[in-house]
């Protein structure tokens, strides 16, 4: 959307010469009304901030403890907003009532609205056939489509350099870390064999993940906590025309300190839970320095499944 903010971002194109000229002109140290702290105090604060930031990067984004909870959907959940982001309605949003009363499960996350963007990569040792990789969403692609308040490919863009600078990443790094990876052994397949996603706090805030849409059955296979991580393994069965239900395995690992969800979903006919667990063991998460919040445009549900899109 073109507005004052857009033009404010456009001012970032002003050249160094003009910025320095104006810096001298303004003689910025003349701003006596500002209660700047003493240099010593600032030095200590800056150092503490840097150390704390490094510690937080290593140990987690915030002390806030998020939670993951699951529940069955009922008819009381019937009317919800769904945002249809096609090209014509992107700005206003089209709201449609959907019936979720017969879906299998809803996952609810109690995360903060603002948080760090996370990415992931597969470390050495994972027994994944690279030839199976059919789609990928890199952090670079996310940054290229980023506008303040959301990740929308059709919307205005901020400079990639700016996003990367805020993330503390190089362009090469942003291409090596992913938001999602989709594997498929068969290009003609209707659905992937395996899908890996990382969803951080802002993307989960206020948005329940719906599993097994439109009609499904959920079986919780495992539910446990390992330190700060909540683990949920669930089998989702959705009826098909053939009479045989389509089965999908979901492994969720939710880090309550870092407020980030790792999801590894696989097709039942190809993978089992031990295989998903082995894959999850070889996924490395990375917290970037890119702090953001998302405008979900009124949508409080998101259908989540083993799909290409």
């Amino acid at each position: 959307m073109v507005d004052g903010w857009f033009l404010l971002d456009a001012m970032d194109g002003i050249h160094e010469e003009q910025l320095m000229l104006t810096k001298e002109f303004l003689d910025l140290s003349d701003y006596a009304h500002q209660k700047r702290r003493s240099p010593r105090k600032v030095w200590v604060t800056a150092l503490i901030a840097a150390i704390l930031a490094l510690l937080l990067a290593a140990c987690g984004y915030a002390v806030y403890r998020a939670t993951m909870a699951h529940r069955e959907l009922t008819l009381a959940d019937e009317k919800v907003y769904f945002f249809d982001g096609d090209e014509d309605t992107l700005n206003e949003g089209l709201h449609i009532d959907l019936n979720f009363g017969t879906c299998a499960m809803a996952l609810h996350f109690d995360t903060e609205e603002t948080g760090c963007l996370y990415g992931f990569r597969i470390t050495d040792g994972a027994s994944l056939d690279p030839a199976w990789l059919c789609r990928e969403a890199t952090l670079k692609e996310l940054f290229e489509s980023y506008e303040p308040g959301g990740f929308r490919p059709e919307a205005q863009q901020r400079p990639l350099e700016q996003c990367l600078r805020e993330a503390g990443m190089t362009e090469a790094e942003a291409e090596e870390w992913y938001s999602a990876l989709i594997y498929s052994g068969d290009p003609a397949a209707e659905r992937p064999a395996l899908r890996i996603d990382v969803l951080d706090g802002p993307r989960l805030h206020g948005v329940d993940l719906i599993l097994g849409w439109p009609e499904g059955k959920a079986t919780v296979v495992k539910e446990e906590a390992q330190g700060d991580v909540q683990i949920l393994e669930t089998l989702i069965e959705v009826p098909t025309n053939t009479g045989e239900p389509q089965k999908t395995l979901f492994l969720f690992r939710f880090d309550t300190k870092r407020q980030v969800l790792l999801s590894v979903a696989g097709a039942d006919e190809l993978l089992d839970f031990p295989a998903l667990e082995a894959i999850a063991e070889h996924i490395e998460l990375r917290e970037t320095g890119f702090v953001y919040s998302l405008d979900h445009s009124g949508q409080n549900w998101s259908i989540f499944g083993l799909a290409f899109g």
Partner: protein
Amino acid sequence: MEDAAIVDLYWQRSDQAISETDKKYGRYCHTIAYQICNDNEDAEECVNDTWFRAWNAMPTNRPSVLATFLGRITRNLAISLFRSKNRVKRGGGELPLALDELNDCIPSDLDVAHSYEIKEFQQAVGSFVASLPETDQKIFVARYWYMTPVKDIARRLSFTESKTKSILFRLRNQLRDRLKEEGLW
């Protein structure tokens, strides 16, 4: 300390890089953040975050002009913080005023469905400002990059406030026309 020496400290991962940066550019970055946030604590937070971002960015970056490298980070952080706190609706500070003024640059018959490339606008704004006479450059950049109050700009130039506002109005119209000429909208 020279900028190159400070950058070297970052590359050497020396803690001294932060203290030297704060000593030399702390007030500069604080002013940028304060003009946007209109809050000392928020400004302080932005400055501290700036040092952290700079620490993470170097290496691999070696900024040619350290002041503007840091200033740009601070400005972006402050704008993001301001937006996240939704201060515009609550008012206060120069940013909401500057935003309103910048709306003058947007044509009334704009095709809102069209997707605009920010990079093209940044280039156009950069060349537009560079083409202005020096005094106009100072006024425009002071107002829309540093978010300096109009009365402060006027005082520094020994202009009246109304004259400064008139100049800004003329410059905004020129920018709008330039963007139109370049086919950006």
